[in-house]
């Protein structure tokens, strides 16, 4: 059995560290995340509320989180605040009910609204197919960002 000499082992580790450093630099120097303004004070408080109640255990943002509830990245686009409040207050199906103050509801909704502005959380046929064509075509699927 051919053995791996120490020189080659050292070379392997140097290459790995190089790749890791490059990857880290690419992530930390990426300006894309800074193209959107930072969260407003209200949305930031809303995000804290989202975290303290562990909403991500059931709901997703950009597909990250639990699968029990729907992805909420773009939910604010078509769910009015009154309907959103009703859902959170009464907790349909598996969802628990939450008793938030009106200010807290405003903050949470502000967070979802600002998340909605950052991009698309899920792919949709209507984004990619020609108008009127709703068939499933593999070649229309996006490669990366939706």
């Amino acid at each position: 059995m051919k053995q791996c000499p120490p020189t080659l082992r050292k070379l392997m580790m140097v290459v790995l560290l190089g790749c890791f450093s490059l990857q880290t630099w690419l992530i930390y120097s990426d300006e894309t995340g800074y193209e959107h303004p930072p969260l407003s004070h209200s949305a930031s408080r809303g995000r804290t509320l989202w975290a303290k109640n562990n909403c991500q255990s059931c709901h997703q943002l950009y597909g990250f989180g639990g699968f029990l509830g729907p992805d909420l990245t773009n939910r604010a686009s078509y769910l009015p605040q009154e309907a959103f409040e009703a859902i959170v207050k009464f907790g349909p199906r598996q969802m628990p009910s939450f008793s938030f103050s009106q200010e807290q509801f405003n903050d949470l909704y502000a967070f979802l609204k600002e998340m909605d502005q950052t991009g698309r959380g899920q792919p949709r046929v209507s984004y990619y197919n020609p108008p009127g064509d709703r068939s499933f075509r593999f070649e229309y699927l996006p490669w990366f960002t939706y």
Partner: protein
Amino acid sequence: MKRETAGVGPSSDKTLDKTTDECKLAKKPATMASCALLSLVISIVAGMLGALYYVPSFFPFLKERGIQFQTLRPLHTLFAAGWIYVSGASMVYFFLIRSGRFQRLQGNLYRVQMVLWGVAALGGLISLSLGIFSGREYLEFPPIFSLFILGGWFIFAWNFFSQIKGGFWGQPVYIYMWSASIIFFTYTFFETHSWLLPWIWERPLVDLQIQWKSAGLMVGSFNLLVYGTIAYLGEEISQDRKSAHSFWVFALFWLGLLNSLTNYTHHTYHIPQREIVKWIGFSISMTESIILIKVISDLIAMMRAQRKDAGELSTTMFLMRSAKWWTAGNLALAIIISIPPINTLIHGTHVVFAHAMGSMIGIDTMALFAGLSYMLVQWFPRRVEKRATVPMLWVAQWSLVGLVGVMTFFGTFTGVTRYLEQGLPEGVSNVVPYLFALCALGLALSLLGVATHWIIEMWPIVRGEAETQTVLKKLPSPVEN
């Protein structure tokens, strides 16, 4: 070439010759392994209750009693990760003791490590059960407990690295794997807490990028702990000290680590970020095909070889073989879901869940079970009862096959209908939760059976009532000359 001395070797004679010393030392990894198994039990119970939340006729029962899914999921994931890290660490201590490099100082530090991790586990259990969350996926406990985890990890790192005598570059591959695991976990554990910085918190896209970079590396770090265990067991069982130094083993380690460092981006294709990061992730994910070809060729060789009765090691060998099958299956699934248009469809569906279950249970848990059974066989052969364990493991295997199959089908179906902006057909949404719950129940009960059986077997060892039955074998140095 400079002759490098062994991390394993004749120095063991002084510390391990006396049976009483062996018994005392053997107690340490056995205690740690028992804690890991207890962590697995907690994770399974929380996961089993969480699975019932998917079944329409069961969830009202849980909801009415205040047992919420947002409590069950973090308990399940935290203690599943705890099981893998702590049992992996117990295998490292097993190695250190077997190689005769475990000294009094390491023993004292080991106790401090156990206390720190115990406080973190108890703190996590209590705070999550009371609904006190940080809201960070997989690290939902309050960040104060991270300090205890990190403190224990530093001690573990010290205990490991201080015993790697005689130069690093001549060590066997599992030392490289465990070293990489320890170093990268330390780095990524800091990185994963970057959300505590206000300027990261206020920019969710930046936060997501960093979060998934660190989560990917964290998964890589515990996988390396497991792969190190597999490589170490392979060397121990075959008694071939050169196998862990071969060119192929190092090449696969290198490729695996390269994947761990960079291919996490197949989970973040859709996040607005630099395209080059995604292309790197995609290209490197495709190199997993090389590992897959190697694993398949090993499986073919394994099937062709005439199987001998492994005697006391039959449970260990069964688990090693099953981990290999799961590695092939999971690699194939990982390669498929890394292809961007397919990833578009299945991201955020149960296919990802199926992949995670296949990796964490099929590969990691089976490999760590193999390690624990080997530990029992080597030190306490009278406490191994394969007749009870292997049938339960067969139930676990087939339940997991069912679970991964159902979730892959359901996730793909969900992904396509979601893309087409259609609802799920009623038949699918009515049947799948029951199939899911059935497989999850079979898996949970069989794993619970194995875990509790081994906890009971290890209890006399933990209490110091059981004596080691075998004198440790003195093996030649694994370090090449």
